[in-house]
């Protein structure tokens, strides 16, 4: 058992690391869904844009300036998307908001394709984060080790924000009942904007970690992590932040175990990477059928 763990440690390590990155993205999905009942299809692309912005900024600026700048730009982007694409549709049917979200995703991908070209951009190697480290005979990057701790620290901060501040209270109220909280004098629009900004901030952090690990960015490299993070949010019970985090870790770990299928299960084949993508969706469908509310989700009752 110990020997087995030792041999395949790299898969488990990268599973935990990717899981933490998914968790950070998933929080963005779950918070927005909790408040607006909207799958923000553009969230994965915001994550990708953060990566591309980092590539461009770091080519001319030192990391001490470019990293905070990336965070600020991504937060501004999240704010802008909400104001331009979702706010005008607040009273429209849910389907049109979702179509608008798909439209934004399409726009962001095409904009990235136009400005950055279709070729993969090399992500800058951030000192210390990208340096190698040896744990129990398997070499990995520092970022792999940092991610889970950083994720957990950020989640604790976020839950403090939600539980103990005024804006957090407003967020909880809005996600419980949209109209009543409006009547109680909560400024809905600012609460929604802040939700989007927090989500984008976490996505920007996730993009720093994720792309430091994978080292290249393309205009479509946001869609897969985005979809997987969404699955994580659904698994944890959409609307619940701890659920999203646990979901993110579970999906990341499972996916990497499948990727290592050839050595872990001893079944040869080169298609395991393809299958790890398919697994996530198969997993999603199983959850949706067995327990549609996820691990920590609240049950919703349809009223006529």
């Amino acid at each position, binding site marked *: 058992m110990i020997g087995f763990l030792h041999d395949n440690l790299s898969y488990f390590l990268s599973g935990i690391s990717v899981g933490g990155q998914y968790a950070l993205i998933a929080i963005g999905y779950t918070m927005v869904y909790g408040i607006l009942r909207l799958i923000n299809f553009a969230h994965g692309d915001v994550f990708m844009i953060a990566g591309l912005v980092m590539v461009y900024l770091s080519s001319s600026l030192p990391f001490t300036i470019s990293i905070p700048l990336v965070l600020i730009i991504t937060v501004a982007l999240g704010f802008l998307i909400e104001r331009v694409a979702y706010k005008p549709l607040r009273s429209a049917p849910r*389907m049109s908001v979702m179509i608008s979200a798909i439209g934004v995703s*399409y726009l962001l991908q*095409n*904009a990235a394709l136009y400005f950055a070209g279709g070729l993969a951009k090399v992500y800058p190697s951030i000192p210390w984060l990208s340096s190698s480290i040896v744990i129990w005979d398997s070499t990995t990057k520092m970022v792999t080790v940092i991610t889970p701790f950083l994720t957990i620290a950020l989640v604790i901060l976020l839950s403090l924000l939600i539980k103990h501040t005024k804006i957090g209270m407003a967020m909880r109220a809005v996600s419980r009942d949209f109209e009543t909280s409006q009547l109680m004098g909560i400024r809905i629009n600012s609460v929604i904007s802040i939700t989007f900004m927090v989500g984008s901030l976490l996505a920007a952090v996730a993009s720093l970690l994720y792309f430091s690990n994978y080292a290249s960015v393309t205009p479509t490299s946001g869609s897969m992590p985005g979809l997987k993070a969404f699955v994580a949010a659904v698994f944890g019970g959409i609307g619940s932040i701890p659920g999203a985090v646990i979901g993110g870790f579970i999906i990341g770990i499972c996916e990497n175990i499948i990727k290592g299928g050839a050595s872990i299960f001893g079944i040869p084949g080169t298609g395991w990477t393809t299958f790890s993508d398919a697994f996530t969706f198969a997993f999603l469908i199983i959850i949706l059928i067995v327990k*549609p509310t996820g691990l920590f989700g609240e049950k919703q009752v349809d009223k006529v």
Partner: protein
Amino acid sequence: MEKEKKKRLALIWAAIAVSYIVILILEMTLRPTSMLLTVLKKGAIYSLVAVSMNLLNGFTGLFSLGQAGFMLIGAYTYAILTMPSEVKTSESVYKYYQCFITFDTGVFIGLIAAGLMAALFAFLIGLPVLRLKSDYLAIATLGFAEIIRAVCQWDVLGPVTNGANLLRRYIDLTYVTIPFTDIPFPPTLFVFIVAGISILLIVLLINSSYGRAFKAIRDDETAAEAMGINLFRHKELSFVISSFFAGISGALLAMFQYTVQAQQFKSMMTYEILLIVVIGGIGSISGSCIASFLYITLSEWWLRGLDMGSFLGIDAPNLFRSGFRKLVFSVIIMIIVLFFSRGIMGDKELSLTRIKGFINKRGMKKGKKEAEA
């Protein structure tokens, strides 16, 4: 009343016949590589898939995003079945695998099989997925489309799907012949006939009692159920039929492109089709068709200059470089989604009286202006 109806129907048929004759004449006079014919072909193919998506999203109220996956199944089924067996046994396509399916079929069987295969998969996928509601359904169908794409590229299935490599040398549009002869079938006409018949079938379905049940489900599920409509059966029916036609359009797309590869059927493709449906108006068949032709004409032909360096006589190679066309497009789409969410047709259909009314209204406005002047 009855007479009027008959007259209108006759007019519609006459219009359709005239348009087909026009296409035949165009086909005879223009060069086969002409842009107009390309646009017409691709537009007809996209019309079919947009209408099939509209059947689900606009008429049954099921927000499904699996269209690209079903098109992929259709395209692959068609390509694998119609590829001549001597090509399959030679090394030219199946280079790394021993092809498993050694027989080959004709175009007609290939097309029907493409539809049936997509429908079969839709039936199986629908069993679990259609119990979900709105956005969960969207994400689950999107997920299934991704799974289909991943599995098609899996190397264990290589003997059937040729792994991640492309399929070619099957019967494409240039090899279609008129049945029982060796005379080549006019390709654009062929696409129009197949797409036309398919869309006609969908229209007939929508106007039948099943179609009314679909609309009832769209408007209010609970009320529909209370009226005795079996929700699950009707949703499954709509899903399977929509996928059948998506499969056929996938096969047509494969015929149009000469080569087909699983890599191409990404979720981006579904988004494009969805946006076409939205531009045309959710719940309008003619709207979907108009939007498809408009979309294809703009993106393949009229706005090509945006990618090529000069547009409307303006030369600006730095601005008009590769990808600008799609950027302009997505901005236009966002404007439509935000400000004209009803699309071109809303949920109405194109009809003679509507065109007349439109012309009259404009004429009246013009008349008024002239009177004021």
